């Protein structure tokens, strides 16, 4: 809590003092949303400090270690800060941000797929999807996982990443992608089957998959 002793001169010419007590933004999501909606100083920084790691983690899970993560993270925050009026339950702030991140990642993946198709029509060589995993020290498993994910349908890729890599509960995955629990279960099942089918061609992933999975 910050206390400021302020002095000012009244119109009568007499100097008087006020005591202004300034409270920090409360720890709850509700306090933070109120502070953001009223434009309180420091509120957007608090939003970054409290939730950026979650948002960043979700983007990583879906996209892998991607050079566009910084831009996407910023896009998610810009969108969130301008859409606070749409957040009906302030307590659900974390889940809401995660859902925005999942949507932005999905949009990014779809955009890249369209670009690839355009380049193919122009007879250019398709870009190497594994090149998006830029860091040299990543393991082959990580590289191959995202190569397989790149070949999956975007909507299935997102639920697969959230369920199997981020280990999200089914209800949280459903909330993040904005579908019912039943729909997300069906989608995860299809995603799993797609992943296993594509992973058969990746020696680095063979050791991870059950013999039962590979035999199907």
């Amino acid at each position, binding site marked *: 809590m910050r206390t400021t002793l302020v002095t*000012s001169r009244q119109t009568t010419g007499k100097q008087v003092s006020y005591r202004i007590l300034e409270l920090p933004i409360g720890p709850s999501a509700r306090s933070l949303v109120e502070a953001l909606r009223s434009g309180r100083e420091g509120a957007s920084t608090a939003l970054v*400090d409290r939730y950026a790691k979650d948002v960043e983690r979700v983007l990583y899970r879906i996209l892998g270690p991607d050079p566009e993560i910084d831009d996407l993270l*910023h896009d998610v925050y810009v969108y969130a800060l301008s859409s606070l009026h749409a957040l009906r339950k302030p307590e659900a702030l974390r889940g809401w941000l995660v859902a925005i991140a999942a949507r932005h990642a999905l949009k990014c993946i779809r955009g890249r797929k369209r670009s690839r198709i355009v380049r193919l029509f122009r007879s250019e060589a398709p870009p190497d999807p594994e090149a998006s995993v830029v860091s040299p020290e990543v393991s082959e498993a990580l590289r191959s996982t995202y190569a397989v994910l790149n070949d999956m349908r975007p909507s299935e890729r997102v639920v697969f990443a959230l369920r199997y890599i981020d280990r999200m509960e089914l209800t949280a995955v459903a909330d993040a992608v904005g579908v019912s629990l039943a729909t997300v279960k069906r989608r995860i099942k299809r995603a799993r089957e797609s992943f296993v089918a594509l992973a058969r061609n990746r020696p680095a992933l063979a050791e991870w998959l059950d013999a039962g999975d590979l035999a199907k």
Partner: protein
Amino acid sequence: MSALDELGKQVAREQDALRERRSHQEILRARVAWTRQRPARNPAKPRVLIAVGVAIAATCVVVTLAVSRQRSAKVPLRATAGSHGPEIAVGTYLEPSGGVPLEVAFSDGTRFLVQSDARARLVALQSDGAHLALESGEVEIAVTRRPHSAWQVSAGPFAVHVTGTRFRLRWDPEDQRLQVDLSEGRVKISGCVFDTEQPLGEGQRLLASCQTGRFIVLPLGEELPKAWSRRPAPAPRAAAAIAADPPVMPIATPDAPKSATLPTHHQALGEVRRLADAGRYPQARARARAAGVGLLCKRADAEGLQMLAEVARYAGDPSLEARALRALRRRFRVSGAGRLAAFALGRLAFDQHLDFAEAGRWFQIYLREAPRGALAREARGRRMEAQMRAGQRAAAKALAREYLRRHPAGPHATLARSLLH
């Protein structure tokens, strides 16, 4: 754990190691700060930005930022102590000292004068108004008239909605009495004794008492009728305006609410639910309080109590929320609602009261009663955090080990790991 789960775990571990080496947060913090500090657009002259067709990524980001600002170009008003004093932020308590009133000046010309005996808090600042909560004493208000403005002064369970007026408001929390003297314009008052919003016109004074459940409207300068000063016989609280000696004004006007008997708790809960469904949580809370919180806590079913707790939470009334939740625990402990109430009490203690020992106790109760409940993971994580904040590090570490064993990728996993390392 299946092979795919193992693969996912390994991938996540590697990603987290990569993330540790690179701080995206610093970059994001700088970008967000730059975005928020851009010069505010004049709402009266919106500028139109045209997005270039096939844009490079950086241009797309700039356009997105500009369009976002355009869409939400509602810059909150600024409040300062006096015309040239320091800025007053949302959440600030205003407590004049030295026996001299404190003037709060807003950037649209509106002025609040918090009298020397008063204590108030700036609750919210928007582009079209602000919300001041008067905890006790008197404040004078002069609101600049604008086509769309929304000013609110709340005092206990009362709320005064203002569009362009000059008035004086006094709130006595001990006697639960409100007085509004309106010099100019028009206001509407809701809460406590009022079934619907009570309008007040220029040159009128309103006195309302939560304790007696009565209100009176009379011209400024008129003496109070004797009937108002007389203590009423004990009776159920009712939104009844008392008859006054002539020539007192509008008690008998069409706008004045008729005398009503106290609704049953079913009726009251129905009205609370209707208001809550419409998103009018402060009014729903006021309705619940008018019906009698004790009665509702004693008579409402589990669903009614859950709704009451939710209304209280969204209306920012933690004491009402606590009462509803405790009633749930007392009367419906063995039900799902009763178990969830234990979790909610823990969250209330943690978030609102910063009472971490109490919060930890409630989360422990929830886990004991619902070890595989829907909120078990959250309860374990929050209990661990509560122990940590209460200074019980050894206990927090033990909980961290258990948490990681059960929920290695849960939302509190990072905290748990930091406790152990």
